[in-house]
Every structure is written in structure tokens, then in C-alpha cells.
């Protein structure tokens, strides 16, 4: 599992939905097989503004004899992503990765539940794909709760539809699927699932993950949450991406999202 920096060539970079882009990047074959939940730090080769690289999850990965290709699914939220979105085919990007730890797969769990908010679907898709491919599970046993503010912010549906049987879509404004928060939708169904046989994977905006943490608090459900923090190095050196964690002994510590995460046991996350 070695990380390294690569010059990637953009194969395509399309706006698949308003403000959501899918970037295909061709990389040297030395790039390690990424595990679900891992991410890359991306920057535009030679450009110093924006100054820091941007962390983006690996949405999909494929390898041919000569090279490998990663897909990044990203939303334009600010300066850096706006500039990424402007890149045309065959532009060069610097890719540092694969970085971070990954979701743990527990073969003993028969029921898998994904809970994603908006772009949070990115790392979960790769995981769903892998679970499906490994066929340690059949389609029936994967449920996907996908939420967003509005229909326009629901992305990546096509892919997960191939992988999951039970897909619940929620939008805050009701423009698609159920009206309301995805966490509420999950809470309504929670009795359907047995904590012992179920593994929950989640990724999304802080408020959503936090809400889910509250819902699961005290329950026996095991839930792995992928978190986001601003990053500088992405490799565990700068201590910039801290998240407050309560360890098993109950002590508060600061863990690095990039190196100790991005995936954490939702019970350990301390919200201010």
C-alpha cells in the first residue's frame, strides 16, 4: 500500500448534473489499487493558486495493462473545484494517492445499509461496487438511503441502481423521493433491521452524520462514517485535519482524518 504522486491526464471531465462533475483521470500503472473510502489529493500541475491540493474520494477505479483510470465525482463548491471543473480533456493534474484508510468489510454482516448525503455517495459507490463484485452479498441485501436538499443534488443514482435492490431517496424539498431528511427515512425503517447482522456505512455533510450518530446512539448498530476536514498534506504529517475522537478508554484525542480516517466508528466521533 504505497502512496505516491503521479501526473494524471484528464480523459474526460463532464458536468453530469448542474454543478456536479465526473472526472476520468488516466494514471501510470504504478498507482496502487485503491480501497473503498480512500481518496486522492488533486491539484493542477504547475498551478500554485489555489495553493493547497484538494481531497477527493475515489469514485471508481479500473486498471488496464498499460495504465489505470480513476473517476472522481465532485461538486463545485468553491474556488478549487470551480477551477477543476474548467479543465479540458488531456489537461494534466497532479494526483497524490491513494490516501487514507478504508471502510472495513465485515463478512459476517448479512445486511448492508448505506446512508449518503449528496456528494457523500462518492466513496460509498466504490464500496458498494466492491461488495457486489466480491459477491460476499447479493443485491437484495444492500439498502441505500440517499438524500439531498433537492432533486438536482441527487447524483450517482444510475450506478447504485445496478448494485442495490432497496434504494430510498429523500429530498428536503420533496422534489424527488420522500420529502425530508434521509436520516429520518432511515429512522422510520430502523426496526426492519437487526443490529447484530447489519453494517451501516455513511458519508455526507456534518449535520447529517451528526444526526445519524444521535439516532444510533445507545443502539447496537455498527456504523462506519467517512468524515471531511480541510487538509494540507493529506498524508498524516501536518495535523491539520483533526477530528475530535473519544477513544475506548473514554479519553478525548485528535485524530487525523487523512491518516487515521477518513473512516471512523460513528460512536467515537465527538461533536462540539
Amino acid at each position, binding site marked *: 500500500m*504505497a*502512496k*505516491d*504522486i*503521479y*501526473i494524471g491526464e484528464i480523459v474526460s471531465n463532464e458536468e453530469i448534473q448542474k454543478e456536479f462533475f465526473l472526472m476520468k483521470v488516466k494514471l*501510470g500503472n*504504478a498507482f496502487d489499487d485503491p480501497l473503498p473510502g480512500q481518496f486522492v489529493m488533486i*491539484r493542477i500541475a504547475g498551478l*500554485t*493558486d*489555489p*495553493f*493547497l*491540493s484538494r481531497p477527493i474520494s475515489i469514485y471508481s477505479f479500473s486498471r488496464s495493462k498499460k495504465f489505470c483510470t480513476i473517476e472522481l465525482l465532485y461538486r463545485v463548491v468553491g474556488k478549487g473545484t470551480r477551477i477543476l471543473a474548467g479543465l479540458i480533456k488531456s489537461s494534466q493534474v*497532479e494526483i*497524490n494517492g491513494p490516501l487514507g484508510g478504508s471502510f472495513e468489510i465485515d463478512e459476517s454482516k448479512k445486511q448492508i445499509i448505506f446512508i449518503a448525503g449528496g456528494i457523500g455517495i462518492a466513496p460509498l459507490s466504490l464500496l458498494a461496487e466492491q461488495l457486489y463484485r466480491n459477491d460476499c452479498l447479493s443485491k437484495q441485501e444492500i439498502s441505500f438511503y440517499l438524500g439531498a436538499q433537492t432533486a438536482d443534488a441527487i447524483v450517482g443514482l444510475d450506478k447504485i441502481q445496478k448494485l442495490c435492490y432497496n434504494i430510498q431517496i429523500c429530498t428536503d424539498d420533496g422534489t424527488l423521493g420522500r420529502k425530508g431528511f434521509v436520516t429520518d427515512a432511515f429512522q422510520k425503517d430502523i426496526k426492519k433491521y437487526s443490529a447484530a447482522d447489519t453494517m451501516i456505512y455513511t458519508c455526507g455533510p456534518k449535520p447529517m452524520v451528526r444526526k445519524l450518530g444521535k439516532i444510533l446512539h445507545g443502539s447496537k448498530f455498527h456504523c462506519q462514517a467517512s468524515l471531511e*476536514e*480541510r*487538509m*494540507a*498534506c*493529506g*498524508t*498524516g*504529517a*501536518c*495535523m*491539520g*485535519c*483533526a*477530528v*475530535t475522537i473519544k477513544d475506548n478508554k473514554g479519553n*478525548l*484525542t*485528535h485524530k487525523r482524518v487523512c*491518516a487515521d480516517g477518513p473512516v471512523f466508528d460513528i460512536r467515537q466521533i465527538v461533536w*462540539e
Partner: protein
Amino acid sequence: MIMNKQKLKVDVNLAVQIGSLKLKNPVMTASGTFGYGEEYADYVDLNKLGAIVVKGLSLKPRLGNPPPRIMETAGGMLNAVGLQNIGVEEFINEKLPYLKNFDVAVIANIYGETYTEYSKVAKKLSSVKGIHALEVNVSCPNVKKGGLSFGSDPKATAEVTRRVKAETNLPVIVKLTPNVTDIAAIAAAVEKAGADAVSLINTLTGMSVDLKTRTPHLKNITGGLSGPAIKPVALRMVWQVVQRVSIPVIGIGGIMTAEDALEFLIVGAKAVQIGTANFINPRATLDVIEGMQNYLIENKINDINEIIGTFQS
């Protein structure tokens, strides 16, 4: 894989001397930007570095500041990590053994909130093998107590220097803060107090505001500015200090390329430290070393020491 230029056979000398400390080249990592070395071992052959300066160590482990801790700025970044570290004990037991596997000088950056803390940390680190020098951080601007107050006062900085010197036989490098009116005066006080070298600059204190929430981007409100944005200030201060003291000066601040590093050497720095550049390019240190070699070859200079302090003002 990029920046992996073919190694050219070179017989130019890059070795420099910082007091009694001999380095195979003048390129060190800056404290807090290279972890404990292993974080960058996938990108960099640690044996190739002039020295590794580890993350600042305190007597007891420090939780550091609450997140968010960093923010991007124009040509740089702000950080308010608050010196989170595992403490000197755990460093010696968990991190140092790994570093001993490499043929590289290890410099422990130390930090205290009282004179006694500085003494104790220095003492502990001097009692073990594998550490080649101490760098005393009197200047971390992120922690209200300690750091800043020491570093901005010549007397206090000198006192810290004396305390540390009293506890160790290792070369002592005092790392200065730029958030002062007259950094050369502080350097002079530190020299008088027996420091073997000074390194500068630490970060400039800055801040930035989130317009949406009208709150600071950093939970700590202020943070330390680093990166190319501060290079002109760092270079000016190094030049001023070089003129004032006779102990070796180590240049730090915004160095991204070999050209940047050479500017510091030309104004008189005996070595440099690469900090924030590691985040932008994990192989920045090696690229700087290689760039220095190429510069010497192109200019038919066979010893890096021949360009140190050759500034024509």
C-alpha cells in the same frame, strides 16, 4: 511518477557544517511539516535528507487546538495546530527507533510553557541516542501561553537558551519568531546566551474570516502564516540576522524550489528548512537538493559552501 528525474553523477560537495553538526546537504525538513519522518517515507528516501526536524515535542502529550486548524491563503496557508504532539516519552519510545534506521541527522524540535519544561524536555532527549541536535521553538504563535511571549522578548529567549544549554551537550538551535520589531536583536541575545545556531523564521501570525458565518476560519481565531507568501519577509530577516551574529543561521520560510533555497544561502544561511512546500509537493526536499546540485554544476562551482554568503549588496 513525476519529479523522478534521472539521477546525474555528481562530484559536487553539498555537505555543510552547523557548529559541530555535519550535514550531507543543507536541506532539512521544517518542524511540524514532515511529521516524524515516516509520514513521508513513501515519497522520499529519508537517507537523502540533510536533516529531519521532527514535529515540536513537549514534556507531556498535547491535545492541540480544536478543529478547524488550517485554511488556505494567497500563496500560503494558516495553521493553528496548537502543537499537538505525542510528548517526548512516546517520541523516544515509538518514533525515534524508526528514524534510527536511516542515515540521517535527526533534530528534535522542543517546546515548553515554562523554563523548567524546556529544561526537562531537553534533558530527556539528551539522554538517548539517535538525536543529533535540538531546535528550540520559542516562537510558536498559536499557543497563548509560552511560545509567543518567550520568543518576542530577548531576555526570555536568552534565558530559555541558557536553560536548554545547561541540560544538553547536543548542538542547540534556537528558532526565532518573525512577529517582532527587531529580530536581529533577539538573535544577538540568543547568541550571547550560548546558542550554537539560530533558525528563522517561524510563522507570521495571521487570520481569516468565513464570510458566510462571520466566524474565523480557524477555531483558534489566529494562526501561523506559512508558504511562499512569507518568503520575502523570511529572506530579509535571515539577511539581517546573518549580519548581526556569527553563529550559523538556518533559513526557513516559503522555500518551494532550489532557487528559493539558494537565495537564502546567498544571503548567508548555512542551511535551509523546507516546510509547507512538502504539502504541495511531497518530494519538494529531494527536488531542492537536486536543483542545488544542478545549479552548482551549471555554474561550475564544486562546493555549496562557496556560494554561502556571496550576496553582493
